[in-house]
């Protein structure tokens, strides 16, 4: 996620709707992707994205620019997504996942590239499902957003050693999953 010009943030914080829409356009795909990776389903990801931007609009007025806006936005997104993920798990995530799978198959193009892309997407989703929400958040911020340990620690407000150990546990879990034939399950 790219840093946004300060003047746009200031204008949005003063209630300028056009400036706020610029922020939305520049960051919505990142927010949505993170939410999708952490929650594991589109309905929750859409709801999280919507909540994140409404919260952003409300809280920009109090934003002091002491920390980076993108760090703050990552934090709000990750926290909302983790909460949504836990709520969905309490309901029944299996039904949601099944519906998502159906939707993906209906939309796909029959080109080789599209099939590969879809296969990788399914694999990533399945891998993330093998992790708990905290590990998922660290993996998403590290692997997909490319954040350094210090930045992840700032976003999640946890010590760097906790970031390190969560990444280690997550990768060990993914490695164990692979060794137990995790990808075969994906291809079914």
């Amino acid at each position: 996620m790219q840093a946004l010009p300060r003047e746009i943030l200031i204008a949005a914080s003063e209630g300028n709707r056009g400036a706020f829409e610029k922020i939305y356009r520049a960051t919505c795909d990142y927010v949505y992707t993170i939410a999708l990776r952490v929650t594991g389903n589109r309905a929750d990801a859409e709801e999280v994205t919507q909540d994140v931007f409404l919260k952003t609009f409300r809280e920009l007025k109090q934003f002091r620019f002491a920390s980076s806006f993108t760090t703050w936005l990552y934090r709000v997104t990750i926290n909302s997504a983790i909460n949504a993920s836990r709520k969905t798990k309490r309901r029944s995530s299996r039904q949601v996942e099944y519906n998502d799978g159906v939707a993906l198959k209906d939309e796909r193009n029959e080109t080789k590239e599209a099939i590969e892309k879809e296969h990788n997407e399914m694999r990533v989703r399945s891998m993330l499902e093998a992790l708990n929400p905290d590990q998922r958040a660290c993996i998403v911020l590290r692997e997909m957003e490319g954040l350094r340990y210090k930045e992840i620690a700032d976003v999640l407000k946890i010590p760097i050693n906790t970031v390190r150990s969560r990444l280690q546990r997550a990768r060990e879990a993914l490695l164990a999953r692979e060794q137990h034939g995790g990808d075969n399950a994906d291809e079914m």
Partner: protein
Amino acid sequence: MPMKCEEMRELLTADYIDGELDEGARGDVVKHLETCTRCRQFEEAVRRAAVEPFRHAPLSSAPASVWHQVARGLDQERGGGVRAALRHGWEQFFTIRKVVYAAASLAVVILIAVILVRVPSTAGRGARLSSGDVEGVHDYMQEQFLALEYRGNNGAGSPVDGDTDYDGIVSVNFSTIVEEYLI
């Protein structure tokens, strides 16, 4: 497994693979990997199972409907904001009115208390004169008395109704209420 390999594997699942090591530590890991086949295989497995798939995952596009929902939410919040402002103003009005009522009540109580305290003290004197008035009358009286005394001593006629006592002292009949009150 030698201890060295266990330490290496901790680094291979985190700092080394994420580029968080300094040059010296990174050099140590690279040297170890050159000589240890099992650790090299471990590193490749980690990359294949836990790193590469994520790095090829594309950014997903937020559906257009999300912005419509956000925009609707902003409109509602704005409406809610106006309603909240009106409610706040109304509450403030009532709060201010309460304060005004309290202040007015206090003022009335103080006024009544002052009246009750002042009225008996002034009524006891039989007239409502200020201290300035009393002093003025007193000065005037003293002046008149001295004048009379002067005239009496010099055989002049009395300017007011009065009698000359046997011992020559003039007694004056002051005929106003104020004079009577003060004397």
